[in-house]
């Protein structure tokens, strides 16, 4: 039953793409938006359930859940004349119906096909969304090939061949994505075979399966959309809130805290505060603090969502590379600020990709080295000392220090006779364009991933540590602040301007004696602090502001750390310490070196928050 893609299947009632619908409801943007949103939610859940089913193919609960998901999508699609979506959902629904009635066994091939369908539907949602933004609605064209492929899953020959081969967590080389399963010549064995016999048979047969490459599925785009993470999977009652509203609320609460503080510390009130007024003000302060804590907590979502996305990636990558990988997740309930979670998605994917692609060996190599053929990738999240710690580790080859050092010398990052420490060698992998991969696969090897990871982590004001043992594996440790929205800052003054220095970067402050200041070639200044010579950065110079004091020994030096290096920032004076809400300066001012954002100070004026890495980095490029 060879199926050509040209043959048009009419059973789906496919309508030509882009046809104007006679149904006025079908073009209603609000309905369509709701359709896209709800479908995306269902699709996310479908994927989770599919991965569960992959590990446990007899899980009736999962089959039902997936069935319900596609059924709902089919219904909505039909209502809105989205035929391409409806048809695919219908076919998958048919397959699942057979499965839940015991007439079809769930094999990895079946799961693959359904995952493909899920990916296709996700793409359709994306297409619909973009086409709506252009103003003219263009519905996706029907995917005849996919429809045929799904249908073939329930074809009798394919079913008999698939039945009996026990599903393994370790992937067999993939069944071809495009050719129907029965195009592969599988011998028709009577079902009476003992299980081991079939396993042998399957193993023998599969190497001869047609060589078709399966496209690595791109990690599903964030299907969260504009919905807040307020919905919890634990079945707790919840409500969906638009994230813009939530962000606005958190913003305003932050301002409320400041305004309340202004009232409380108003000089007019300082004179003879009556006890009752004093009590009320304290009460107000307490309540405001509580409101703020609650508002901040609303933006927290469990990191488990993020981890689940990697599950799909690991599955696809390991199948593609013919490796066996188990993914272990810990601390999925750990809560993070929603923004952090969103920004972590990419780095996490990169790290996992690197692990599976480079770190983890093939099952043969592992057995040869006395390891179990199934490798393990572990993701762990937890709170520690006021920070979030996320661990990504694998038990693969580990980082090859010699190779890294050699590559680094080749690229001129390190001089040939340098003796870098183990830590320094490991940190080399974060350089842009750095890769010790001998070949570039389409997944990695270009040397882009780890650089992105480092930048993202820095953007989140965190740090990343690397630990590795040859032959045993590699561990990445990410340490991130609990929240991005508020920063503890030192308010400093230069000229008439005020700036905020993030406290986490400050090591100490001092008024240097004149003899501790020296210059290099008349241009670069240095200060001797506790026996170390540290470079001096004049903030007034960097920002073009006229300072009150020209000489470092009349000014204040703030010893700061950025990227592992220390330097001294010269300012006029220290004005105070304040917790501030970080305000973005907007896209137009996003790339100003040395400025991370703005904050509203105690008196209502805006103070610029310093980006120390930018200040120090700019200096190096002079």
């Amino acid at each position: 039953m060879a199926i050509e893609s040209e043959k048009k299947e009419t059973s789906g009632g496919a309508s030509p793409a882009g046809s104007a619908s006679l149904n006025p409801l079908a073009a209603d943007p609000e309905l369509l938006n709701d359709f896209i949103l709800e479908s995306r939610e269902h699709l996310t859940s479908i994927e989770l359930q599919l991965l569960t089913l992959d590990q446990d193919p007899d899980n009736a609960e999962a089959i039902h859940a997936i069935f319900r998901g596609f059924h709902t999508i089919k219904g909505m699609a039909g209502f809105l004349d989205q035929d391409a979506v409806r048809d695919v959902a219908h076919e998958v629904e048919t397959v699942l119906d057979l499965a839940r009635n015991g007439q079809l066994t769930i094999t990895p091939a079946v799961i693959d096909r359904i995952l493909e369908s899920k990916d296709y539907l996700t793409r359709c949602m994306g297409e619909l969304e973009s086409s709506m933004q252009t103003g003219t609605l263009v519905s996706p064209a029907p995917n005849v090939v996919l429809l045929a492929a799904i249908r073939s899953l329930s074809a009798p020959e394919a079913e008999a061949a698939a039945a009996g081969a026990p599903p393994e967590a370790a992937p067999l080389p993939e069944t071809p994505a495009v050719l129907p399963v029965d195009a592969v010549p599988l011998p028709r064995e009577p079902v009476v075979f003992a299980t081991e016999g079939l396993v042998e048979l399957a193993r023998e047969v599969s190497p001869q399966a047609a060589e078709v490459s399966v496209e690595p599925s791109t990690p599903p785009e964030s299907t969260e959309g504009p919905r807040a993470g307020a919905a919890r999977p634990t079945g707790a009652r919840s409500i969906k809130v638009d994230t813009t509203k939530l962000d606005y609320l958190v913003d305003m609460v932050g301002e409320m805290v400041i305004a309340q503080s202004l009232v409380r510390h108003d000089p007019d009130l300082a004179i003879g505060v009556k006890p009752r007024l004093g009590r009320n003000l304290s009460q107000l302060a307490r309540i405001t603090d509580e409101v703020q804590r609650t508002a901040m907590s609303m933006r927290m979502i469990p990191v488990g969502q993020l981890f689940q996305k990697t599950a799909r990636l690991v599955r696809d990558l390991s199948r593609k590379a013919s490796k066996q990988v188990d993914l272990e997740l810990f601390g999925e309930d750990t809560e993070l600020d929603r923004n952090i979670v969103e920004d972590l998605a990419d780095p996490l994917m990169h790290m996992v990709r690197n692990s599976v692609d480079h770190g983890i060996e093939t099952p043969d190599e592992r057995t040869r080295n006395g390891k179990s053929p199934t490798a393990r990738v572990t993701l762990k999240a937890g709170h520690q000392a006021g920070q979030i710690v996320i661990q990504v580790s694998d038990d693969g080859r580990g980082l090859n220090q010699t190779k890294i050092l050699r590559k680094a010398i080749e690229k001129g990052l390190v001089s040939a006779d340098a003796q870098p420490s183990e830590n320094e060698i490991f940190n080399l992998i974060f350089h842009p364009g750095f890769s010790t991969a001998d070949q570039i696969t389409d997944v990695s090897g270009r040397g882009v991933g780890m650089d992105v990871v480092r930048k993202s982590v820095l953007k989140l004001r965190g740090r990343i540590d690397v630990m590795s043992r040859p032959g045993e594996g590699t561990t990445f440790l990410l340490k991130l602040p609990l929240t991005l929205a508020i920063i503890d800052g030192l308010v400093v003054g230069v000229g008439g301007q005020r700036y905020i220095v993030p406290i986490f970067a400050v090591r100490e402050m001092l008024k240097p004696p004149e003899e501790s200041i020296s210059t290099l070639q008349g241009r670069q200044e240095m200060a001797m602090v506790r026996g170390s010579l540290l470079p001096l950065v004049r903030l007034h110079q960097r920002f073009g502001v006229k300072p009150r004091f020209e000489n470092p020994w009349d000014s204040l030096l703030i010893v700061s750390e950025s990227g592992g290096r220390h330097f001294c920032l010269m300012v006029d004076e220290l004005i105070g310490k304040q917790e501030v809400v970080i305000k973005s300066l907007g896209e137009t001012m996003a790339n100003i070196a040395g400025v991370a954002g703005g904050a509203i100070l105690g008196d209502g004026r805006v103070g610029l928050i310093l980006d120390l890495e930018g200040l120090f980095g700019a200096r190096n490029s002079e």
Partner: protein
Amino acid sequence: MNTLTAPPPTSIGSQKQDQRSGKYLTFGLGKEEFAIQVLRVREIMGIQEITAVPQTPAYVKGVLNLRGKVIPVVDLRLKFGLPELEYTQRTCIIVAQIVAQIVAQIESRAEKLMIGIIVDGVSEVLTLQAADIEDTPDFGNGVETPYILGMAKIKSKVKILLDINRVFTAQEVERLEVVTGSGA
């Protein structure tokens, strides 16, 4: 998604006229009077303390605090190349909402921005009919004015209608040109 796009200077059409009619806020800059669509104006306030931001073009004065939101402030005088004046009591900041093309890395997208625009003083809100509006004369010497919607003649005084989106879209292009070193 109602972005008003300025038509190319050479085309003339009656639909275009209808798009330009409506209520405008007029304000002064030097000896000239300008007008922007009222729909784009969020509020008007007196001049207040602006925090300077380094490494921005001269006409970007900095940022200020608008009820908890930090918005950029530009000086329209400087943007149009007029000599800088000291701010007086009449000087106002018009807070406008614009749709700007943000060119971020490789993609460009439209984003709604609030910006404060410093002007010499605001005058009044006028309702302009299509009949009052004329196209910008072609000065013939290659002067491009994509951000000028047209001219209005009210009581024998000429008001220049600004497409406030375009004033700052051109800015993005300028910045790019400066950064990439291309363009005059």
